[in-house]
């Protein structure tokens, strides 16, 4: 029996501890905002926070995530109030297809926690998510907007 604390709530389910955290979040807990893109930590669509740090959940096991605070995209808004990153995303009309955006927003949220006023170089170093629609120009604008908010 695995126990995971996700968005402040504890979930218990019967799963092989070697199951990738991504698939436990999606299939056991039923939170599908965290996306599968590559399964090998290349694209970042599955990014969640583990104790506040960004992690690609497709390569972390359930066993390794037990006992830690896990935050997913569903946990960013509090009582329906969007986080400042989500608000900046809305105001800058960032997503196109939107599939990579959960991971992008999670990566950016972690960056801003670490560096509240990131430079372009900080953004380049920290945000390595793949977006095939190519929203990067709006992503950069929205990061600066969120940092200024």
């Amino acid at each position: 029996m695995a126990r995971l604390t996700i968005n402040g709530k504890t979930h218990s389910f019967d799963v092989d501890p070697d199951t990738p955290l991504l698939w436990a979040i999606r299939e056991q807990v039923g939170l599908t905002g965290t996306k599968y893109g590559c399964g090998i930590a290349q694209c970042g669509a599955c990014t969640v926070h583990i104790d506040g740090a960004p992690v690609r959940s497709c390569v972390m096991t359930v066993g390794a995530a037990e006992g830690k605070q896990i935050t997913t995209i569903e946990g960013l808004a509090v009582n329906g109030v969007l986080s400042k990153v989500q608000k900046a995303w809305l105001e800058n009309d960032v997503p196109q297809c939107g599939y990579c955006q959960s991971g992008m927003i999670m990566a950016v949220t972690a960056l801003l926690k670490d560096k509240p006023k990131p430079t372009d170089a900080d953004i380049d170093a920290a945000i390595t998510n793949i977006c095939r629609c190519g929203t990067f120009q709006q992503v950069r604008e929205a990061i600066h907007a969120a940092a200024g908010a």
Partner: protein
Amino acid sequence: MNYAPKISRRSFIVSSAAVGGGLALGLNIPFGASVVRAADGSPELNAWVVIRPDDTVVIRIARSEMGQGSLTGFAQMVAEELECDWAKVTTEYPTPGQNVARKRVWGDFGTGGSRGIRTSHDYVRKGGATARVMLVQAAANEWKVPASECSVAISVITHKPSGRTTSYGKVAEAAAKLEPPKDVALKDPKDWKIIGKPLKRLDTADKLTGKQVFGADLKLPGMLNAAIKDCPVFGGKVQSYDAANASRMPGVKKVVVIDGSAVAVIADTWWHAKTALDAVDIRWDGGANTKVSSASIAEVLKEGLSAKQAFVHNQKGDAKAAIAGAAKRIEAIYAYPFQNHACMEPMNATALYTADRCEVWCPTQNGEAALAATAEASGLPVSKCDVQKVHCGGGFGRRGFTDSVRQAVLIAKQMPGTPVKLLWTREEDMLHGKYHPVMQAKLTGGLDANGNLTGLQIRLSGQSILAAVRPEAMDKGKDPFSFQGFWPAGEHSFEYTIPNVLIDHAMRNTHVPPGFWRGVNINQNAIFLECFMDELAHAAGQDALAFRRKLMAPHPKSLAVLNAVADKGGWGKPAAPGVHRGLAHFRCFGSYVAACAEISVKDGNKVKIHRIVAATDSGYAVNPAQIERQIAGSFVYGLSAVFDQECTVKDGRMEQENFHQYNSMRIAQMPKVESIVMPSGGFWGGVGEPTICVAAPAVLNAFFSATGKRIRSFPLKNHGITMV
């Protein structure tokens, strides 16, 4: 172009139910007592417009949203004529089955070829206008006044003489019972208030919170999950397999063979299905195709460059003679590789099959083709099938194909009554794409003593998409779309006026399945032409802009976009130290596009793209903010391709299986993109694809300016060149 996949007999029956003229689309619904109602009971004014009592306007969207933003553009077009409150607009997809049942009232569902808006603007605007006239008439009837005394704005109808007002929600029920007017006039574009505005997308909110359901996220009661491996050699089959171990693994329900070529595992969760599939011991029979490699394909294409027979598509004067007699003869050979779409959301489809009904949920660019595939795979008539479209996690042409729909239905058939979601791994997605076709080109130009281009010959040699996908759309064996940007006239016209021209195509098809890949054949054709124009300008000792301008003089719209990027890009003025510029222009999908790139190169191979100025004239610009996003986004797709992406064939199969072998651009490499959206009016051009093709040649021409080196085969990583 029409992206409908191969027309089977069954899908032909679907399409032959089409109503005649475009004007009737969406408007030929019953009227009078039999009001057509949406699921919640609200009345339809016509197939495009439903109005709820609370004034909410539901606009039906026939085409698919895959990130390109046209869902918002369609709503803008309907809302413009409807004169409704934009803040109260919401959208929904009708299903392909409903379209068939209603004699194709919504017209074409196909979403590709940058044609969604440009081929339906007329009838969707008429849907809005017709509904507006009926709503005003209903209010006038209630007030017993002439409709001509009533005006309308933002969903409120006002009787001017008396000052009485009512809202759309209040009169929608009565309006729906009226006979639709026969022919309503559309607004003059100068009066547009919603079309042409940089409005925000309507579909953003759920994409920020994880709430947006993509196909890969679907959950249905009692649903099982499936993972699949198709024979990695295209056209191969399953020789034998041993599922003894896999069958005993947790959650596994069934191991099945699909179409003789694929093995699928059905399990409670997808992770269980995928893990068990990895434990199935499969022996493949690749057949004769196992002998094919990238090198063997390149040889075949190389032979085509000098072959006697070729399909001619653009011929003027005598190019061969002009080049033979030229003062200076320039020749270059270019080569473009296979590439995968690599949509962020891997291919998937969910199916529920019973003996008398089959339903599919899937992200698709072509709902009607998905319906046809569902009917064909299920063996049920179209009337007993339907497809629920879900937002696509990227499409780029890949989701016009229905291979995963067919597989999902065949899998679900083995589990009657239980919905099964089939999700491909990234590896499956990379191994079973519908690849950007391979193409080589030999370009030959002749310059006279004054450096004038007197003759140009382009020989293409490579794969035809239509030959594999829509042979019925070919012209006596010729694939006209291989010549995008080279047509003598039309939406992909060649915009240089040269006295002698010969452009032909030696078709060399391979066993690799080709597909429409964002831009289709403009990606390679723009590189071939625009890099070679740069080579010719250089050989003539002329400035690349001046050389082009001279040949483009009879083409004012092309000249305008070229001049716009040259002006804003600072062409002819000093650049920052170490910064070099390159230009490119193209005409495709009815639009005119150009780019000016600024790059610097370190150590001869590390390319920093600082800025790309891009202009597009698509005639009308329904939403300039979304067009800017399409331009910048398409550059990410196109530059990733030219720098890093190639699918290579070894032993008949693709070698690349994931993003570590098929890299895609990151934010650090993103140049500043400055878009010039310059609609000149009077025509409707495409938006999603055209600009993609000018980024690569503009950067390549800047690379030559910086290094003196012409790179003529792609991707650039094969030459040790990287984007930093």
